[in-house]
């Protein structure tokens, strides 16, 4: 792997490798000194063309725990807002010696452009591009699900996949990069995915995706789910005829208190409720659901740092790059192997 652009083309071996490495990284977060020397002397640029404090600080924490130097480049208030092109920005970062660029962009495909052109030679990590993909979000979701699934099976999670796990992803699939990345990654990991959404918020062509599609939340729950992932409803959808009103949306597709009770009634004591954040409490998820013991929202945030550490580590310390001093994990553990692509 030279870049992490999408989960669509992420192989099972690479996905498992990232998740297993993230488990090792998580162990670092439990230590008193939460820091590894692995990426000392390497420079990671957080290039954010779209506001996202949560994702940026997660990547920043991940890079810093690996001892990398971190530069935060927010497009607002920078030369980008004065009309500088992506090409010029990329060439500038290249000239400054960036080893990795973590890019968040409002335009789908912008990370692919950085990776495909000769504008910059750095490793590119997609931190969310338009309505396309958000691969590290899907990886942290899968990490969270895998721990849960392995715990239920009474095993450790390393090396495992999600075979047999039933996952419902509910909400604005049409505009969701989180949903897309999750659909591809969960397919690769063997989970059984159902998308639940109003027909207006599903893309034309969704019937060819490797998942089931439902317009009915209650039926989906009744058929049995092991994880329910609620997607955020963006404010700009609310007045564009995608659905009649927020109340109707909430009644039909939100995870409200009735549905939370239904999980108990249906005997699904181990079903978890996930949300990538930030949540619209009372819209797509009720406060009781968000705060219930089933909720993995904070675990997802915690796991996000581990997964991003793994991604940075695997991309920057691989055989395809020639660091001055080959860094190594400072403790015993399986050393991940690299693949070029």
């Amino acid at each position, binding site marked *: 792997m030279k870049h992490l652009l999408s989960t*669509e083309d992420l192989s099972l071996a690479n996905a498992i490798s990232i998740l297993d490495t993230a488990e090792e990284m998580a162990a670092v977060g439990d230590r008193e000194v939460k820091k590894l020397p692995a990426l000392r002397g390497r420079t990671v640029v957080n290039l954010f063309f779209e506001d996202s404090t949560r994702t940026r600080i997660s990547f920043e924490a991940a890079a810093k725990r690996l001892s990398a130097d971190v530069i935060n480049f927010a497009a607002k208030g920078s030369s980008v807002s004065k009309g500088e*092109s*992506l*090409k010029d920005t990329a060439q500038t970062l290249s000239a400054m010696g960036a080893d990795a660029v973590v890019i968040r*962009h*409002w*335009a*789908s*495909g*912008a990370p*692919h*452009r950085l990776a*495909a*052109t000769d504008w910059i030679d750095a490793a590119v990590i997609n931190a969310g*591009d*338009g*309505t*396309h*993909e958000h691969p590290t979000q899907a990886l942290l979701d899968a990490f969270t699900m895998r721990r849960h699934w392995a715990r239920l099976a009474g095993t450790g999670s390393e090396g495992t996949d999600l075979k047999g796990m039933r996952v419902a992803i509910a909400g604005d699939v049409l505009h969701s*990069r989180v949903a*897309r990345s999750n659909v591809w990654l969960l397919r690769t990991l063997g989970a059984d995915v159902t998308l639940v959404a109003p027909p207006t918020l599903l*893309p*034309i*062509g*969704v019937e*060819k*995706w490797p998942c089931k599609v439902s317009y009915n939340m209650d039926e989906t729950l009744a058929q049995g789910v092991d994880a329910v992932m609620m997607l955020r409803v963006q404010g700009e959808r609310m007045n564009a005829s995608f659905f009649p009103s927020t109340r109707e949306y909430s009644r039909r597709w939100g995870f409200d208190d009735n549905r939370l009770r239904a999980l108990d009634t249906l005997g699904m004591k181990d079903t978890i409720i996930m949300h990538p954040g930030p949540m619209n409490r009372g819209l797509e998820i009720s406060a009781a659901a968000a705060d219930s013991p089933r909720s993995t929202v904070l675990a997802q945030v915690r796991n996000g740092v581990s997964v991003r550490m793994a991604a940075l580590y695997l991309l920057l310390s691989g055989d395809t790059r020639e660091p001055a001093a080959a860094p190594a994990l400072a403790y015993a553990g399986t050393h991940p192997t690299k693949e070029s692509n």
Partner: protein
Amino acid sequence: MAATTGTYLIRGASILGGEPADLLIRDGVIAETGTGLQAEGATVIDAAGLVALPGMVDVHTHLREPGREDAETVETGTRAAALGGYTAVHAMANSTPVADTAGVVEQVFSLGRAAGWVDVRPVGAVTVGLAGEQLAELGAMADSRARVRMFSDDGICVHDPVLMRRALEYVKAFDGVVAQHAQEPRLTSGAQMNEGDVSAVLGLAGWPAVAEESIIARDVLLAQHVGSRLHVCHVSTAGSVEIIRWAKGRGINVTAEVTPHHLLLTDDLVRSYDPVFKVNPPLRTDADVEALRAGLADGTIDVVGTDHAPHPSEHKECEWAQAAMGMTGLETALSVVQHAMIETGLMTWADFARVTSTAAARIGRLADQGRPLEAGEPANVILVDPAARWTVDPFRMATMGRNSPFKGRELPGKVVATFFKGHPTVLNGELNTPYAFTDATAAGVA
């Protein structure tokens, strides 16, 4: 007529892909055809193995001048046209200022004459400033020195049904045609690519086929209602072909065009996010490509129009959503059509002449273009080597635009010579010299 274009004896060219014959070109016309022709002092061109065709006529070219001379000029765009085998192009109206007055169309017309590579026929805007609110002075443009017959807001759809109806009716007064860019604006707000399986995966806002088809359906019915002539620009979907086939079956006076890129490329290419594949209407699916080829072969689609749309590199070296829509096409059209239509057995060279020249000249009402290769006809003739193969390199083209979606592809067919009014603008596959319009011919259009 200019008497100084010289005498050329073309020996043994396959006429429209048929039997070899000689063509004697003298004083701007085809003086004689036959075999074993002799002519004192003539420049002899050995055309064995070459196909002789009428000079190509593009119904849809963006020359960018006035206003965007950093993208293309009339001079560079018409050089590209001549190299591509064209002897006439219709220059679309979306320049800056918009070609919505007699003054602007006459300026473009004059620039074309000064360049001398092809006939430049300005297209007049349908509405003032392409704003879709008020008819431009269509009559003044029709009566101008440019003698405009085709009107289009291309780039933007004449969406208001009443305005479209009025435009269709009004141009009947001077045998004009309204060329519609069929795109329902509300259904394509922010659209980036064809809406379908690929857009679903890529997360790019979709441009649904129905946005084109619904406008075409409306417009053919309007054309029928008011008894006028409609031309549909760059048809891109299988459904559009069906609607036009239906309309022609009912005797509605509609013509349609397809671009070379829609005959060959599909939206799968967008997976690269390389904006060189961003175009409006967007690249569609394999099924659409098949339907467009079938429609062109059976005459449902009348002509190939390039929609040649050069852009400066900075408008393509960026994020997909930021990039300009459009592709160059003048220098690849012949090769792409040969590849997609002739090598597949769907069309002959005679059919090629119909869809690239004869029918196009008729739509634009160009009396001396698209004529048979017979004695007494204007000498707008090209010689094509159908056996040649070449690899597309945008940096070796005459157009200023580097945005060719065919970059790196090997394509068949090469234009060896282009005769424009009896003068070779292209010889041995390279630009020769432009035709020198005299004041006398510049004063009026033949």
